[in-house]
């Protein structure tokens, strides 16, 4: 047994800060019952993952936590046994869905009965979970809890603005029909050849003034509807994984969504390959995309 003095970090914390554990946990991605630190713009918070969203795996349902027992408020829970080897506080009433892109540091798993007790806000389910109490300086504790709640709500709003999933289905039945109709009109109304139609549809060749007039009469605009790219879900989901958090953290693409750009670049790269689309190829495409985005800055 490895004895330690109280002013040393516990063995459990050594285990979860082990580089091998961290690498493996980040590659595996988040799962229910795990403790993480979420980070965004140097603001960091502990949390426990209750579940990954069934409909959108880019969203995790979480419960905010703190490693400072003095911050507890009466509606929280004090957890004696945690993956850090020191007591923590959880606030089931502040449970909220947030995007997994803010998850930064994986810190091990809670025991299943402890997860149940926290998730159901039911301290009776595990004897290592207790109802918290308001400390003497309860105003400061509530101030911290409210600031924490506000930050998690901010992350929730980021989750609401993720690029939509199922783009391929939407586009097959949506805009691409319009483009099909426009291409048909180029043939029917203007009688253009396939080569000319391709130049106009895909390569930016402009209609002449008289052609534009004819198309207008037939109810079409002078330029073809924009081709919308459909990024497959697997790329949109893969780009949100915490494994890219550090690499993408400081990247700024003039306000554009860095992860959407990553998914787009990786999907485009892989579409051009003939060597197969297995997991290793997808991973390679993402790494290459990150490199090219870094240099493109």
């Amino acid at each position, binding site marked *: 047994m490895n004895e330690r003095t109280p002013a040393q*970090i516990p063995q459990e*914390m050594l285990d979860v800060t082990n580089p091998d554990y961290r690498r493996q946990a980040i590659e595996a991605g988040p799962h229910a019952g795990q403790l993480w630190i979420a980070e965004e713009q140097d603001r*960091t918070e502990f949390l426990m993952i209750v579940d990954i969203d069934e409909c959108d795996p880019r969203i995790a349902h979480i419960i905010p936590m703190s*490693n*400072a027992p003095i911050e507890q408020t009466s509606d929280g829970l004090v957890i004696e046994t945690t993956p850090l080897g*020191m007591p923590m506080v959880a606030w089931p009433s502040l449970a*909220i869905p947030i995007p997994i892109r803010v998850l930064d540091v994986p810190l091990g798993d809670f025991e299943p009965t402890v997860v149940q007790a926290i998730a159901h806000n039911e301290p009776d389910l595990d004897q290592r979970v207790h109802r918290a109490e308001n400390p003497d300086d309860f105003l400061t504790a509530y101030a911290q809890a409210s*600031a924490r*709640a506000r*930050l998690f709500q901010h992350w929730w709003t980021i989750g609401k603005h993720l690029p939509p999933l199922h783009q391929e289905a939407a586009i097959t039945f949506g805009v691409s029909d319009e483009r099909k109709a426009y291409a048909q009109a180029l043939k029917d109304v203007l009688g253009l050849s396939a080569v000319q139609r391709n130049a106009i549809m895909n390569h930016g060749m402009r209609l002449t003034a008289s052609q534009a007039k004819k198309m207008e009469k037939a109810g079409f605009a002078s330029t073809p509807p924009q081709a919308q790219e459909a990024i497959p879900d697997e790329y949109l989901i893969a780009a949100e994984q915490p494994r890219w958090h550090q690499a993408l953290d400081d990247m700024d693409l003039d306000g554009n969504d860095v992860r959407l750009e990553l998914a787009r670049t990786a999907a485009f790269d892989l579409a051009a390959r003939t060597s197969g689309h297995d997991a290793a190829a997808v991973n390679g495409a993402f790494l290459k995309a990150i490199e090219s985005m870094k240099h493109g800055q």
Partner: protein
Amino acid sequence: MPNKQAKTTWDPAQHPRGWAAEWFEAPETPDDGSYRIGEEIRDLRKPGPKTIGVLGKTCNSRIVFYPDLQAMFAYQDDTDGCGADQMGEYWANEFCTMHMLYDKKRKAIGLRPAFIKLYLSSHSDHQFRIRSYKPVHDFFGKEFAQNTDFGRLRARVEARLQRCTSVESGEPVFEYIKAACNAPERSEHVNAWHVLGAPTARTTKTKGALAEAGAKVTVSWPTEEEVRDVDRKRAALALEYDPKTGMLYQQRGPRYTIGKNGAKGRMSQLDAWLLAVLTAAEGSMTLSEIVEVMLIDHPYLAPDHQVDMHMESLEFEDGTMRTDVEMSAYGRHVPTGYPDSTDPADALGFYESQEMGTREQRALIGIIRAELPEEAQDLIDVHALPPHMLRGLAIEIRCRRMRTTSKDEIIEQLESELRESMKEDRS
């Protein structure tokens, strides 16, 4: 890419002033991604020289806002001739490790949660350093409020200002406001107190003149010996630490009394003193200023505190600007930098968008706003809290105000007020 050039030309370990010198004197180097501090903490299972060196630098840059804490270090027995590095390292150790007195000896009882969080959340030395400022600042705020004579006295006076009500009408006598505080090329607001109904502008009187006005009121001040006696007893108090819950319990310390309590139809002596000083001020004063006026005639109440005879301004004596807006809430934890929501529609928040809670939440916020001392309203972002938590907060505030621990009656009364308030909201 690791910045190899910077590493070969600059090796802090070789520097006579050690690791801390890196960020004192080295040019700002880009983040090379190495986390040597993290490795050190893992190897030693506690903060080592690199960690303390870096945190010492942060502590030195933050402690300028807390002269009382500087004085606390300076008056310790074995600190003669110590320089800034030692002071920074002393406070860095305090930041990392919690201590308690045990058989008159200081004993480490655990690592501080804020330090653990900083260690776990950082990925590089650079990030560790950048992220250390806020927790160190918060740590100093708490240390100041709990462990300095001035901080404790300040908390007592604040509580009196909040609680003091008129003998005739029962209305509060003092009001907490934000007063404009202008310095050359800069204008800010400070948190200040004034007599309800009197002008809110910052006072133009000097602290000396106000102390004279206060001296006209009869107050049985504690004697110097009484104050020292309380200090001695306080120093011998043990902290209780529960490793299971991680809670530190401080025994209630003995207190000296300031002035006699009020009898029927009469204000307490301290309240009368506060009223005399703030009336003479003909304007508003910050809490620190009020306490400093008290210290002019009774310096032994906070012997380590240097009274600045000037009223609080945005400039230090040496002309440097106070850059942190938290200075007005001196000694109190202020959560800063609420994230801005990009879309105003989203600012409504998650819980408010849950239809169930909205009306109840509004009613609870109304009740809390009415109960909460005004200066605490800045601290708590009530709109971020769900109804369940607001209810806990409302009950706690009531219990403390009524000085009762039996919650049932309080809960019942709160529920009926809530029903009433929600009914009005609906109509």
